[in-house]
């Protein structure tokens, strides 16, 4: 249902209970960025503890007992921070920024629509995840503290409070996750319905910007994978509250059942997070190479194939979990097959650079940063996917390094590429280039310096989620590596300050943004910055694909989708 013709809405209707997808997108962005601070703060404490296990951790004296004892970290609280770091980063940073913010803001604009198909459902989806974030944050303050069983919440550790001393914290965790799932289910339904029903005339599916394809695929993956984990979360909650027998062996249950339910969702989930980041990069690249993305249809088909494959690889998280050993080889095969569509997408991105006319403003730097760092994540996936090697590296820092080399590139390099690129459209101002470049280099250097050493730790057998590595003789020689990684991480954290200054400063002091400051083709750039209520003064019709850059014989090196250039030598698309 749309807004009726009306006068100016009041503060609450406009900024808080808005049904306008653009405002909702901004709300998701702020939520994601704020939660990123909480996630980063927990990473800081974790990493300091790993580097100097017996020390007082600076800046933590304000945290009371029993979490910290005058700056000394309690082992339970360490596990709780590890749990909350992962949970917050995946569910309350990555998804809100990439799907909630970029997806919500861009989707209607990119398809030439005036809003989402279901605007009130959209508003409800934001307030649901906001509530979820409040519930999760509140778990820090209940008796026993927040959940302590890892973001993976394996029972029996997560099932029986006597194993961790955490009671309400774990229940609130489950509740927060359930609300988050509901929020993104609502969002996914909205994205899919909108994209199917509200595309501008002439906008066939193969003229959609690749970001839209990525958001839609992510929505489908999420909607079809989250069900079993919702079932599992209900089962875990029932085990914890009314004594059911799903996962506890002493009641006849099976701990491995949870793992199957969790990872059946967990693996498609990482692609839910990955694809929109890839989408942002694929929108930025052609604008700053001034040529089409290479292999549009191939990328679309590869994305769909990888999405399908993502449903049949989940047990590679469980090779040593106690599953029948005969299952390992089939899952190794499906896992390694999934590297093929991703290889195609990466090769296509590289081919997109060939023959370009390349400039390097901040969005492009971050897009390239994604490409360079995601390659590390992709190739190290091969090690983990081989069951034989996984015997050794499972549960070590090799895995931690691998997934940070996939998640961080998509959320931070891909996400920042998107934020820097679309900031003019979202906020109507240009960001500062010098601060942007500084932010990029500090992030790029800090990130690589933090996580490359972790591959070495993993090779050394360094386990995950360990409060004090110095308990083990074989880990003592690795202490300098931990210290180096911690120092690098501090650089990485400090490197975000230019971004914070830039983001808020530009809101006030940035140059006013033109409609199309980058000279781009997609529809969001063919209206004002920010777009008016209703997005387009006149609803556009589409005459071409999204990447008609540098058409031979054309006067300009770009061709917006809603313009049919008479002399275009375009080979139709």
């Amino acid at each position, binding site marked *: 249902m749309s807004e009726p013709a009306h006068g100016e809405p009041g503060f609450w209707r406009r900024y808080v209970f808005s049904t306008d997808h653009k405002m909702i997108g901004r709300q998701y962005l702020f939520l994601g960025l704020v939660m990123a601070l909480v996630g980063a703060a927990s990473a800081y404490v974790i990493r300091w503890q790993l580097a100097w296990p017996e020390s007082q951790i600076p800046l933590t004296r304000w945290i009371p007992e029993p979490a910290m004892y005058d700056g000394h970290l309690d082992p339970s609280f360490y*596990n709780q921070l590890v749990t909350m770091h992962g949970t917050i980063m995946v569910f309350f940073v990555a998804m809100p920024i990439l799907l909630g913010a970029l997806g919500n803001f861009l989707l209607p604009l990119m398809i030439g629509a005036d809003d989402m198909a279901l605007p009130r459902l959209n508003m409800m989806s934001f307030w649901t995840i906001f509530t979820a974030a409040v519930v999760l944050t509140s778990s820090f303050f209940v008796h026993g503290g927040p959940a302590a069983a890892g973001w993976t919440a*394996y*029972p*029996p550790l997560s099932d029986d409070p006597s*194993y961790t*001393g955490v009671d309400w914290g774990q229940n609130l965790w489950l509740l927060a996750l359930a609300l988050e799932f509901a929020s993104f289910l609502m969002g996914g339904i909205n994205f899919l319905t909108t994209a199917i029903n509200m595309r501008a005339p002439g906008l066939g599916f193969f003229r959609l910007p690749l970001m839209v394809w990525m958001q839609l695929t992510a929505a489908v993956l999420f909607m079809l994978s989250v069900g079993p984990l919702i079932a599992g979360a209900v089962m875990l909650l029932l085990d914890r509250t009314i004594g059911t027998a799903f996962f506890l062996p002493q009641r006849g249950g099976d*701990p491995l059942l949870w793992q199957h339910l969790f990872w059946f969702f967990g693996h498609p989930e990482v692609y839910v997070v990955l694809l929109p980041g890839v989408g942002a990069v694929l929108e930025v690249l052609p604008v700053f*190479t001034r*040529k*089409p993305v*290479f*292999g*549009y*249809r191939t990328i679309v088909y590869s994305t769909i194939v990888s999405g399908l494959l993502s449903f049949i690889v989940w047990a590679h998280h469980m090779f*040593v*979990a*106690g599953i029948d050993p005969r299952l*390992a*080889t089939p899952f*190794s095969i499906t896992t*390694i*097959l999934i590297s*093929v569509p991703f*290889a*195609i997408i990466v*090769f296509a991105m*590289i*081919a997109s*650079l*060939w023959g*370009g006319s*390349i400039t390097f403003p901040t969005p492009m730097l971050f897009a390239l940063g994604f*490409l*360079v760092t995601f*390659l*590390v994540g992709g*190739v190290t996936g*091969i*090690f983990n996917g*081989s*069951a*034989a*090697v996984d*015997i*050794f590296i*499972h*549960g*070590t820092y090799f895995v931690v390094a691998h997934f940070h080399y996939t998640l961080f590139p998509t959320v931070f390099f891909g996400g920042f590429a998107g934020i820097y690129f679309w900031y003019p459209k979202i906020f109507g101002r240009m960001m500062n280039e010098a601060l942007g470049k500084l932010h990029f280099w500090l992030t790029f250097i800090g990130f690589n310096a933090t996580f490359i050493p972790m591959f*070495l730790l993993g*090779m*050394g*057998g360094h*386990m*995950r*989620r*360990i409060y004090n590595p110095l308990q*083990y*003789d*074989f880990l003592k020689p690795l202490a300098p590596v931990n210290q180096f990684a911690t120092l690098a991480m501090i650089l990485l954290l400090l490197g975000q300050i230019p971004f914070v200054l830039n983001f808020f400063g530009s809101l006030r002091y940035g140059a006013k943004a033109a409609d199309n400051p980058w000279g781009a083709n997609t529809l969001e750039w063919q209206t004002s910055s920010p777009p008016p209520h209703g997005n387009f003064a006149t609803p556009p019709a589409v005459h071409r694909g999204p990447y008609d850059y*540098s058409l031979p014989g054309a006067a300009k090196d770009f061709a917006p989708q809603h313009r049919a250039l008479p002399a275009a030598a375009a080979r139709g698309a």
Partner: protein
Amino acid sequence: MHGWFPQNISTYGADVDRVFYLIYYIVGFWFVLTQVAIVAFLVRYRRRASVPAVHVRGDRWRELAWVLVPAAVVLVLDLGIDAAGARVWDTVKANLPAGDVHLEVTAKQFEWLVTYPGPDGKLGTADDFTVNSQLHVPQGKNVRVTLRSQDVVHSFFLPNVRLKQDAVPGRSIDLWFNATKTGTYELACAELCGFGHYTMRGVFVVDTPEAYAAWVAQHAAAGGGA
């Protein structure tokens, strides 16, 4: 490179490492190739005033070959990696040999209870004894371990053997290894199991068969006890 791994003292450890190196060299090649291509393209195709970008869409087979042929090569190499890995996996996890020595290990928060069969060599008899967080094995013999847990999921990790197996409550899981070098090493827990997870360390001693037999006799005589 190899210096980063813990010392390998098991019969199949080198096989596991070899699969690691196989993957390392294959992906290393692709990694270098792609990163060099990226940097080369960024340098070569920087914007120059009068040189427009080339409008190539990559929708013709001739153009796509540049992407699809390398991807096909990746696929073939992937399958080769899987074949090599499958053999090693089967050796370690699927085809368990009969054990010369049979032990029981029960994980619990936050220690390893290791039950030895005593001088008669049979588990479940009166001369069995249990020791807390000390894994003693004879060199050069096939050791079979039946792994259990009393409470939560733990993970039995012998870095020097290249062996890891989760201990799941409600299940008995068999594993095996053969240690080739005497010495003192470590046993670690590799699955988050509570606030004391980081303390769940065991001493792992590989004795000569004679020294092992003597150690067993001594503990059995002392009446065992955890």
